[in-house]
């Protein structure tokens, strides 16, 4: 039926709509800052995606958000609200940095591998804390994961000002990641590293797991009706633990990417709210890995673009951050509107019996 194609189009509609609104907002803000909105926007797109270098920067910046969002899809679809991605990121970051620093004496690529795995496991284990509390004591994971975020952030802050402080600069950061643990670049003049291309493997894997496995089906069912899920022999406890593990693991991967591949240290603000932004983006992308990928890329490019435009034209930075909060909202709203419209179409097509 042609309706299947229409359904797919309807899913993309809110995204297109949302981005258009976003651009409109950006142009308005440019105008208010005394710039010509049209040329500034052109500049924005150039700085965001214009050259290979800029495009690769956009891709690079989108990776942490992409990885975290892919991870978050699992618990969210199962109805588990993992608000703790931010904290999981911090934990993973510091763990991978610590492993990198302390295993520096080992030959490459051993420290690198250990650090990546350490980071992933660190994130996964930290995510298991709210999961475990939910499974054993039925404690609401929204509160626990939220609280654990701050515990993680402050703990990391303590560590980078204390035991893990950089002795040379005495700033609030770890010593630089030793060469044996740095993720190598793929191309000499671009910042992309090997972990970045994992994106192209993770996206299809996520798609397959969610749509084509019994685990994915059970996930979706549980998210919709946790009570009935039990009576369908779905093992809820296992799903809670596994989905949170996956989410933490992928968040850890994102952290490893940033720490070992981009920033090469852990500093205050290693995560610019990636954990929270990803929460918005998971929904923003229609709970769909490809959508998430496109949006992260677009969003990352726009952020880079606005930053550079600000830099060159002298307007304050932070434009992008402000918009980043508005964006999910715009998309949410468009999503809901589209949903309501398509539902009423559905009802008209079927005769309601009773």
């Amino acid at each position: 039926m042609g309706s299947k194609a229409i359904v797919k189009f309807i899913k993309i509609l809110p995204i297109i709509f949302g981005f258009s609104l976003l651009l409109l907002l950006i142009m308005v803000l440019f105008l208010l800052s005394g710039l010509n909105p049209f040329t500034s926007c052109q500049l924005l797109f150039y700085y965001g995606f214009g050259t290979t270098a800029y495009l690769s920067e956009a891709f690079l910046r989108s990776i942490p958000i992409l990885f975290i969002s892919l991870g978050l899809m699992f618990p969210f679809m199962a109805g588990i609200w993992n608000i703790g991605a931010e904290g999981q990121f911090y934990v993973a970051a510091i763990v991978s940095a610590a492993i990198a620093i302390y295993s520096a004496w080992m030959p490459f690529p051993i420290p690198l591998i250990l650090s990546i795995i350490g980071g992933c496991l660190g994130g996964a284990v930290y995510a298991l804390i709210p999961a475990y509390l939910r499974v054993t004591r039925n404690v609401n994971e929204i509160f626990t994961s939220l609280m654990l975020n701050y515990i993680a952030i402050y703990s990391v802050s303590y560590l980078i000002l204390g035991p893990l402080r950089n002795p040379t600069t005495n700033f609030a950061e770890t010593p630089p990641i030793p060469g044996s643990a740095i993720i190598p670049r793929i191309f000499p003049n671009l910042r992309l590293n090997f972990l970045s291309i994992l994106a192209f493997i993770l996206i299809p894997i996520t798609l397959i797991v969610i749509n084509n496995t019994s685990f994915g089906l059970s996930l979706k069912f549980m998210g919709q009706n946790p009570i009935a899920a039990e009576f369908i022999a779905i093992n809820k406890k296992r799903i809670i633990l596994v989905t949170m593990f996956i989410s933490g693991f992928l968040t850890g991967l994102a952290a490893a990417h940033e720490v070992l591949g981009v920033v090469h240290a852990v500093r205050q603000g290693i995560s610019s709210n990636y954990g929270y932004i990803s929460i918005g983006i998971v929904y923003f992308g229609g709970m769909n890995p490809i959508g998430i990928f496109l949006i992260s890329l677009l969003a990352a490019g726009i952020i880079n673009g606005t930053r550079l435009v600000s830099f060159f034209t002298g307007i304050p930075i932070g434009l992008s951050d402000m918009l980043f909060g508005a964006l999910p909202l715009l998309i949410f709203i468009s999503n809901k509107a589209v949903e309501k419209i398509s539902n009423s179409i559905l009802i008209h097509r079927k005769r309601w019996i009773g």
Partner: protein
Amino acid sequence: MNTNSIFSPNMSVSSLLFIEMRDITKIYPNGVYALVDVNFDLKPCEVHCLLGENGAGKSTLMKILAGVLKPTKGEILINGVPVEFNSPLDAQKYGIGMVHQLFNLIDDISVIDNVLLLTPLTKREKLWLIKDKFALDFRKFAEKMGLPIDPFVKVRFLPAGLKQRVEILRLLYLGTKILIFDEPTSMLTPLESKELFKFIRNVKSQSSIVWVTHRLNEVNEICDRITILRGGKVVKHYTEEDVRNGIELAELAYYMVGDAMVSYLDKIKGDTLQNTFDKPILKINNVIVKDDYNNIKVKGVNLTLYRGEILGIAGVSGNGQKELVEAILGYRSLEKGSIIFNGIDITSKSISERLKMGLAYIPADRLERGVADGISIAENIYAYWVNTINRFNNSIGILNKKYLYDKVVNLIKEYNIKTIDPSLPVRILSGGNLQKLLIARVLQNPCIKVVIAEEPTAGLDIKTMQFIHRKIIESCKQGTSFILISSELDELLKLSDRLAVIYDGKITKIYNNVDNIDIMELSEYMMGIKY
């Protein structure tokens, strides 16, 4: 908030109202005719029973009277004057109130809090509420009505009978004079029902009562007049004199069900696989189970289920059947006792383990326990199959979507589930089709050994009911055993090989042969009169 109740609990009898509903027609937006030209009236100080099978329109008619729904055509007259209700509050102004099947109570606050939510208060009382004063007043009122209750208990901790009592008392406290009871005994134990009947007989001297039910035996307990609805129309009306002269239950059944009556009361069950009857498949040994409020609901039940048999469990809802079922499934743990399934002790196994071993469940609570309404019809079926059929049963197994989809399409055809496209969300299915889906997916599961069916045909029309019964018997002939929990005796008598009666958490009688059961004796066991 309604503060204009023109009645107070102390109003004299002579000012009670005569209610008339004339030519009421209700058509739903999707074209379904729920009621057609229905006439119904209510005199002061009487109990008027509204009888009909599920889906006949009784609830709809009463919802119109209570102001919850508006009629498409027709009018309501009070003492000859036409009135219009735009909301339940309007009806309340005339003293009309309804005791719903699912109580309109807030669980986590106390009884008196629930009452206060609806009590008309003065400006002063609103701003400074002296709860104790009201509580005392309410307690006295409750005692005067013959329905004592502690006002400070949180509603969550009350059993169904007391919750209903709170609803009733609340309505009376507000000055309701016309009480509509919608299937009131469906949640009560026999003892609680008895107390309710006694209360009705007492209170009717000061009020008028509409008693909506599909249970024939209640009619003789309290009714002054009877109106029978079928298919949205009034098919028969019995006056006070008719009732005083006595009416045959069979005659009532005839009017309720029409031409289908003949097969309705007949047993259509054929022979069972007698030779496999000797092999026990499920043994329930001395099982003791508590409910959510720490009361012991199953008090030492011993049951054996044999391969290929249908074991019916008769009993009024609330006697422990629900907890027993949940214990067998593994949803509720046992305080004492054990359960052996297919030779294996499953007492400490989780639900998913038991379901994987071949236990299956058709829940009474279809939406809550059966499906996820946002995902597609097909996925609701697969989700069950992939988790319970061993062949599909690897944890991250890749789904063979084509194969599963084809099986679903065949299933839909076979069970005649009315739907255009199985990839549409489940929420579009009607009640009957949803039930067919739940039963179909279980019965099509080749790995099932024991099916626990709770109220499998509740709320369904006759045709669908018969279809489902046929399917159950077919499945049984292939060696599946059934535990059938039903509050409809006819269904139990029609399908069961053996029939157990549960009363107050114990099995009080097991009939090994259902053919010549004395219904009177059966009722006595169910009511707890005989044990």
